[in-house]
């Protein structure tokens, strides 16, 4: 790097020169009492594009924009520094090629022993890039602050809250000062004791997939719970290293409650449509109406077996006249229900078997085994009562004894 002629001020020595030359992202220049540039170095050239020959002896106003120069901003800055000793400012400056640079500038006044200002030191830094980022950030910040029904917050790599927004406050009841710096788990309910595992999983998934979603109970400040939908996305720096996460959450409690009610209604309808009827002592009838999928068959079997236990039933009639079509699956469900009832000591009879049903069963090769079947319910009942009677009579027989 070329040596720049440095205007000598008292006490300058070679180590100072070396230091100056090593500063490349700041411009540190000396101005005289009138604001004329008296020193220069590599960092200043980098910032402004001027070489020492071009700039030394020129006024500092050269760096200001045309508008600012007309307003006398340079003089104002120097004057402010002279008065208070140090003046900090930010603004657009102009480089040699006319490009505008957003600079952070600090003027320090150097006073003569006898009083008065003998010169200034001007330290300038290019903030153009970071200003762009800052503007973006400010825009994002404003946007986040305007979202009132979603929680949009930042958490750091360890799961601590770094930022808060009005939506988060509305959702949880916490003010920013109550949460910033605290760990995410403060929002987890007692049930979620595995919260630390959960959140590590989520963060890992977010890093791997770009985002991670979950739903779960979270805790408000007043102790009440709400059902939250949560999305976690990683924040990366310029090198792609994850520095934290953005968490967006919203309250789904109402929706969840609705879903639960719908499910409850569905269950109740299920119950109503398949009542188990006790017609005689120890005889139950289960009229099956409609299609029989595995879920429905399971529920049917459960309620039937519970009734068998409660009523001490010995025979159950499964009436399938209301079942539209018998296929292998339906037959399988029926046979499983029959076998489960048998394990509880109950005999089953199939009733409502129509001619086409009988044909389907045989054509499909379905083996009913020892399961008896009848066309009409009346016939099935007659058979059922016969079975019950046989059990009663034989059971009353005295034990022959040893």
């Amino acid at each position, binding site marked *: 790097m070329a040596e720049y002629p440095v205007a000598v001020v008292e006490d300058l020595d070679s180590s100072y020169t070396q230091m100056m030359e090593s500063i490349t992202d700041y411009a540190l220049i000396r101005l005289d009492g009138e604001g004329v540039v008296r020193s220069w170095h590599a960092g200043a050239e980098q910032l402004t594009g001027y070489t020492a020959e071009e700039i030394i002896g020129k006024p500092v106003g050269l760096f200001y924009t045309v508008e600012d120069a007309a307003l006398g901003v340079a003089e104002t800055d120097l004057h402010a520094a002279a008065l208070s000793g140090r003046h900090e400012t930010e603004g657009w400056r102009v480089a040699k090629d006319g490009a505008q640079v957003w600079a952070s500038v600090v003027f320090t006044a150097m006073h003569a022993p006898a009083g008065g200002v003998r010169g200034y030191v001007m330290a300038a830094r290019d903030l153009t890039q970071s200003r762009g980022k800052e503007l973006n950030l400010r825009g994002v910040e404003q946007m986040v602050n305007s979202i009132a029904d979603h929680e949009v917050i930042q958490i750091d790599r360890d799961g601590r809250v770094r930022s808060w927004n009005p939506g988060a406050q509305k959702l949880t009841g916490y003010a920013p000062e109550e949460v910033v710096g605290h760990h995410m788990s403060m929002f987890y309910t007692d049930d979620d004791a595995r919260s630390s595992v959960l959140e590590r999983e989520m963060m890992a998934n977010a890093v791997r997939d770009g985002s991670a979603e979950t739903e779960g109970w979270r805790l408000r400040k007043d102790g009440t719970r709400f059902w939250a939908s949560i999305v976690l996305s990683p924040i990366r720096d310029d090198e792609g290293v994850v520095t934290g996460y953005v968490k967006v959450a919203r309250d789904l409690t109402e929706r969840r409650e609705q879903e639960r009610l719908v499910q409850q209604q569905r269950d109740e309808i299920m119950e109503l449509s398949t009542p188990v009827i006790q017609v005689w002592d120890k005889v139950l009838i289960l009229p099956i109406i409609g299609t029989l999928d595995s879920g429905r068959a*399971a529920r049917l*079997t*459960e309620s039937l*077996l*519970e009734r*068998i*236990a409660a009523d*001490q*039933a*010995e025979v159950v009639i499964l009436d399938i006249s209301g079942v539209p079509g018998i296929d292998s699956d339906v037959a399988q469900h029926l046979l*499983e229900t029959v*076998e*489960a*009832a*048998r*394990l*509880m*000591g*109950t005999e089953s009879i199939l009733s409502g078997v129509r001619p086409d049903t009988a044909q389907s069963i045989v054509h499909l090769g379905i083996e009913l085994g020892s399961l008896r079947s009848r066309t009409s319910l009346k016939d099935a009942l007659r058979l059922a009562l016969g079975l019950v009677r*046989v*059990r009663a009579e*034989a*059971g*009353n*027989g005295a*034990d*022959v*004894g*040893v």
Partner: protein
Amino acid sequence: MEPTSVSEEIPIMRMGSDLLVTLQGDLGDQTVEALERDVTREVARTLARGILIDVSGLDVVDSFVARVLARLVRIVRLLGADAAIVGIRPAVAITLVELGASMSDVTTALNAEQGMARLRRMRAGGVRA
């Protein structure tokens, strides 16, 4: 009804010419295997004509237990006695069917009372279980 022997924690009661074996709680595999041994011995010793195995105290019957029970029934039959498993709970019945644990040739009844009636019916009718 008097106790005839206790196989670890499994009580075997004698009722006339029949035996009632009551299983309850959570049974370890070794206990279940001992059951087969002990019940067989008791049937032979007492010349019992029927045994009831009451499983109403079991809330889980897996394929292993089901297999041992089915085996026990077959063994007891070879000794000239009738056997029935009673008290299979609804949830257990559903599970056994779905598990595919075959107990198809095992006589069953809702409870000990119905089981006894069943045993008598089988003897009276000359029909073996």
